[in-house]
């Protein structure tokens, strides 16, 4: 507890420092180099997802340039960077919201091309969106199965299988050790429970990789703990998780590796054990060129 509080306090202090550092950075007009001398380990075996030299341009804006990295099954990777660093664009490329301008994505060694989110989902990449993408007026079970409802009977009376969806959703919540109830309206739920609903949704298919966009941005300290616990459980099940976060303590608590983006480039790819919040902050703001 004390250690967690200490981490949190450190991150607050660091955040204040960021502003000063950022100003210094913008005045220096320093060109950052593409060099990624990161301590990426070459492991044996095939990577779950490998990105090779991914670039994304929106007209003259280069949102991503030469991004390459890979993630292994059961690995939890923190993806960090300041606003506009290219995190969201990178997530959207992986999630199939739009294709990259150039570069290659390999899923279990095979090249993949996603044109819409459903493509990525079918390939085994699930996304937990920042606003969770939940419909408040529906029950937890209805949200879990949204867009892939279970049905029973024959056409034209092919109706929803309420019983099966409720049972399956309840099983998923039990698996995630969340006490969310399948029949409750999402409108009446706590932030942590909503998070559980959004994560349960990713467990419907045989997801191999889950992208989580700021899952701990708007919830209470206790619920943050709950969400990090959920991530650990996913990892224990052999699922790779990419955690996009601004919260240094979360990344250092749950991730194996951290990737730092700055101005559309990857500037660091380090094992958490070999890094520190201070170093990562420096990398995010540009006070450190690369590590």
């Amino acid at each position, binding site marked *: 507890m004390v250690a967690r509080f200490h981490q949190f306090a450190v991150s607050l202090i660091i955040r204040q420092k960021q502003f000063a550092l950022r100003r210094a950075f913008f005045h220096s007009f320093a060109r950052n180099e593409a060099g990624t001398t990161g301590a990426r380990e070459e492991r044996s075996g095939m990577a779950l997802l490998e990105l090779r030299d991914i670039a994304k341009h929106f007209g003259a804006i280069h949102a991503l340039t030469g991004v390459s990295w890979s993630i292994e099954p059961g690995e939890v990777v923190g993806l960090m960077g300041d606003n506009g660093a290219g995190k969201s664009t990178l997530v959207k490329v992986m999630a199939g919201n739009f294709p990259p301008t150039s570069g290659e994505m390999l899923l279990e060694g095979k090249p993949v091309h996603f044109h819409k989110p459903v493509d990525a989902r079918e390939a085994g990449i699930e996304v937990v969106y920042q*606003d969770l993408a939940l419909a408040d007026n529906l029950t937890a079970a209805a949200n879990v199965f949204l867009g892939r409802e279970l049905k029973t009977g024959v056409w034209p009376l092919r109706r929803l299988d309420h019983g099966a969806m409720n049972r399956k959703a309840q099983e998923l919540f039990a698996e995630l050790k969340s006490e969310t109830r399948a029949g409750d*309206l999402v409108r009446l739920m706590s932030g942590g429970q909503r998070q559980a609903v959004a994560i349960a949704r990713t467990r419907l298919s045989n997801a191999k990789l889950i992208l989580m966009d700021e899952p701990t941005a708007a919830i209470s300290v206790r619920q943050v703990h709950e969400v990090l616990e959920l991530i650990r459980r996913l990892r224990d099940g052999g699922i790779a998780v990419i955690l996009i976060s601004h919260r240094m303590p979360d990344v250092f608590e749950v991730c194996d590796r951290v990737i730092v983006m700055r101005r559309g480039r990857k500037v660091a790819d380090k094992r958490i054990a070999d890094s520190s919040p201070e170093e990562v902050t420096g990398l995010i703001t540009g006070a450190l060129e690369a590590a």
Partner: protein
Amino acid sequence: MAQVTSPAAMNFDNVRRQGPLHRVLSSQITYVLAALAILMVIMALASDKFLTERNLQNVAQNFSYIAIAALGQTLVIILAGIDLSVGSVMALGAVATSLAMEWSQDWGLFVDWPGLALIFAVLAGVAVGGLVGLVNGVLIARLGLSPFVTTLGMLSVCRSLVYVITQGRGSPTFGPAKDLFRALGNDPILGGLPPSLIYMAALAVMIWFLLRHMQWGRHVFAIGGNEKAAALTGVPVERVKISVYVFCSALAGFTGVLLLAWLGSAPANTAVGYELRVIAASVIGGANLTGGLGGPLGAVTGSALIEVIRNGLILGGVQPYWQDFFVGVFIILAVLLDRIRSRRAG
């Protein structure tokens, strides 16, 4: 001080359960049904004419027209949209049916089989309605125009078409199906029930089934609740939206057909201003204009309440000009009630 609990011991005491009783008590329909019951008791006591068979038939027939259109309107409102064009579409549907009857009156097949002529004429009215809905739906769902403005324009377009086609005159019923058409629209069945009430009940049950037990209905609610989420999870948002506008306008067209059967001739100003009564019925019945809430029972109850109020004022000898005043008061009361409930629900 918050404790780092073991996963198994995590509790969620900040979440309220919503039991069946709570759900009933927090539902707008409960209150509207109660208001309707109270109103009917008062009227039964105040006027010996209210509970006569003739009067009840009259009320049932009048309100079922509004209710059928309100069923469609409720679907649109659940989607967080609105359809202002329903009144004009009713008139257009009536005119289309009349034209179809006139056009096909000499067809040999139809002379021999009036039932076929009837089906053809009714389908013409419903299809014209559906076509208008398709235009509305494509403009709103695909091109992203505002439902309010699009359907406001369509209200004007359809009404103008009705005047152009009829040159301002009434459009009567024609041909071999004329008598059958009149009978199926008016003659009481099943021991004195107006047929329009039966059609309404059948449609209400069908829509209830579609909304609660079909994937389509689930998607309608999801789009109304959070359109972006629905799109991200793979709901075919555009298709569902267009289908809802088509459905709503087709039901309005069908209402027009029923009005034609009832009146024997649809004047060019048929159903002017009905869109407001239809929307009022949906809103009184608990459909929320911000989307995601509503149902067929609400649409029917809301329509019934409006008609009972109107009937009560007529029986009470109140000047007819007061009718809209009271309907308006009830709309505001319904929205107020909704506000109070949602505030209590937090």
